[in-house]
């Protein structure tokens, strides 16, 4: 018997960029950047966008010159590389700018009182030491909670239908859920207004929650379907083999395995609607005092709070709006990372 220890050869990647090549690429980028800055300073081009344009032009020129001796195919490749990378940068920059500006501009308003006081006794343009957004935060959470209670069962049922029952309407349900996710948010608001608010003459958190539920359902249903699809067929077969009926298998074998996945579905749904403004403008309106009764007249929510104070337009009102959007964005980010954590659990 011969004892051999063979280790698998490490994969070779001769085509990957070597270290000197990478250093060269980075330094070319840096030099182009400085050159672009110099050109912007000397000529009349203005601001960061002027710099970006110059940088783009220089990069194109560099790509052109460096490949001049190699051939047309390489030249196209190098130029397209510059163009595609630039397009990606331009596509991504606005989001970074949004995150940055919300953080910078909203930061000044983050104080204890922002999370403990409402605006009942504070005028919008008062200093940021006074007043807060607790009423809006509570209102938003309340509406989202009600909307979740309504949509989660429906979304799960629709997921079960698409994966377990697989009845006659499978294609139709899937198609409708998809199309429904494109319903404009204002239309959802208008729908609840014409059906619920108009009849009862009451703008309320409940009406707002109904509108949000319409927007939330497709997200929850689709995520629930995706999650349930991941359940291995063997589990179902095992359930049937043990003599369980379909409903027992579905409820007691399949559903428990995707518990955290369904949590993800709910979280994603909440993240989808927490920032919706338009439907709330037609259903829950706004208000400046803290309240907990979802049927008791107009109520504030974070989006309408931001929207309203932005409209007022004075310095501190706008600062309040920025802080409101910082809170909103923080909630969305939190939900997002929660969804990631839960989403990772079911995937084995």
């Amino acid at each position, binding site marked *: 018997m011969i004892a051999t220890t063979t280790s698998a050869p490490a994969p070779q990647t001769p085509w990957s960029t070597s270290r000197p090549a990478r250093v060269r690429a980075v330094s070319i980028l840096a030099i182009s950047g400085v050159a672009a800055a110099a050109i912007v300073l000397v000529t009349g081009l203005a601001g960061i966008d002027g710099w970006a344009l110059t940088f783009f032009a220089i990069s194109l020129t560099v790509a052109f010159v460096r490949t001049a001796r190699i051939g047309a195919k390489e030249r196209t*490749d190098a130029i397209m590389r510059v163009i595609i990378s630039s397009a990606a940068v331009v596509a991504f920059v606005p989001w970074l700018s949004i995150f940055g500006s919300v953080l910078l501009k909203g930061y000044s308003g983050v104080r204890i009182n922002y999370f403990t006081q409402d605006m009942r006794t504070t005028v919008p343009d008062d200093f940021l030491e006074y007043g807060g957004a607790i009423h809006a935060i509570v209102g938003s959470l309340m509406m989202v909670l009600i909307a979740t209670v309504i949509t989660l*069962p429906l979304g799960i049922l629709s997921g079960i239908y698409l994966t377990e029952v697989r009845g006659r309407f499978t294609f139709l349900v899937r198609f409708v859920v998809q199309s*429904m996710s494109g319903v404009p948010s204002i*239309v959802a608001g208008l729908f609840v207004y014409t059906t619920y608010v108009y009849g009862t003459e009451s703008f309320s958190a409940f009406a707002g929650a109904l509108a949000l539920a319409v927007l939330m359902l497709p997200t929850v249903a689709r995520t629930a379907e995706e999650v349930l699809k991941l359940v291995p067929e063997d589990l179902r077969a095992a359930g049937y083999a043990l003599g369980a009926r*379909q409903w027992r298998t579905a*409820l007691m074998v399949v559903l428990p395995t995707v518990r955290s996945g369904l949590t993800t579905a709910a979280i994603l749904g909440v993240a989808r609607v927490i920032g919706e403004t338009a439907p709330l403008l037609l259903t829950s309106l706004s208000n400046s005092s803290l309240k907990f009764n979802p049927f008791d007249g107009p109520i504030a929510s974070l989006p309408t709070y931001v929207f309203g104070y932005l409209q007022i337009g004075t310095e501190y009102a706008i600062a309040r709006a920025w802080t409101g959007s910082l809170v909103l964005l923080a909630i969305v980010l939190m939900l997002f990372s929660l969804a990631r954590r839960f989403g990772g659990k079911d995937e084995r």
Partner: protein
Amino acid sequence: MTTVETPTPREMTVIYNRDDKIFRGIVTSGALTSLVVLGAIGLFLFLRGAQIFSDNGLNFLVGSNWTAGSEDGLIPNDFSIGPMLVGTIVVSIIALVVAFPLAIGGALYLEFYAPQVVRKPLVTLLDLAASIPSLIFGLWGVQIFSSFGERWATLLNDRLGFIPIFGVEFENFGRSPFIAGCVLASLIIPITTSVAREVYSRTPRDLVDTCYALGGSKWGAIRAVVIPYGRSGVIGGAMLGLGRALGETVAVYLLLNLVFRYNFRILESEGGNVASLIATKFGEATDYELQALVAAGFVLFLLTLVVNMTATTIVQRNTPRA
């Protein structure tokens, strides 16, 4: 020598008993709620707006007046949404024209060019961006982006002003469809990019490798294989983005001055879309005007539904279900 035949799986027959039937019934009715809700939206909006449709007929779609009548009837009610429909389409098309190339670039970059180190964070950023509320896009557009937008608009007008759509009547370049379109573009880039990336990532690896093996460059492979392979899926993604842009309310509300006039000059500071019309006029609308707003909402609903159903069909046809 014996040949072993592989057994063929036998056909399974299922008999559902009463419990199962009840279960399937409950689940089916739960699943059909979305269908019912979608139908109810269309039905109720139509019923509440029916009066307007019968009063104005086709003029509701092409006329350019939004006049609330006086109570004594001296000024008659006259509601029509022509300019807003045009505004909706103009702003969405600007958004799409700006967003589409950027989204394709972004998707190709993420799939084929991005170094491993930056790829993951960028994909996370992309997912995050898709969940930024449109309100925050609007806020950012008004407070941060509009100064850039105005400068670009001035430049465009200066150099290309002889082309009618870039001309202006008043040299005030803020709050124009162009700026709103750019902000909407950054709003729809996430969805378009992630659909495009999804589609591109499904390009058969063999085909791409074959391209390289034949001496093709990266761009060669992209042009010869990736782009043709993903074409219809990408178009579907763009239409999903278009659907979002058509129905966007607050961002447009914050970025555009609502002016009731047909406006094809994209740098002029006037415009609006159907959704922002509803949000603007809702507050102090009379009962009849409310019906007109609901009718406008119905038109918007139909428009986005058609766009979305088309997009869904295209995307689903190109997404093999696992």
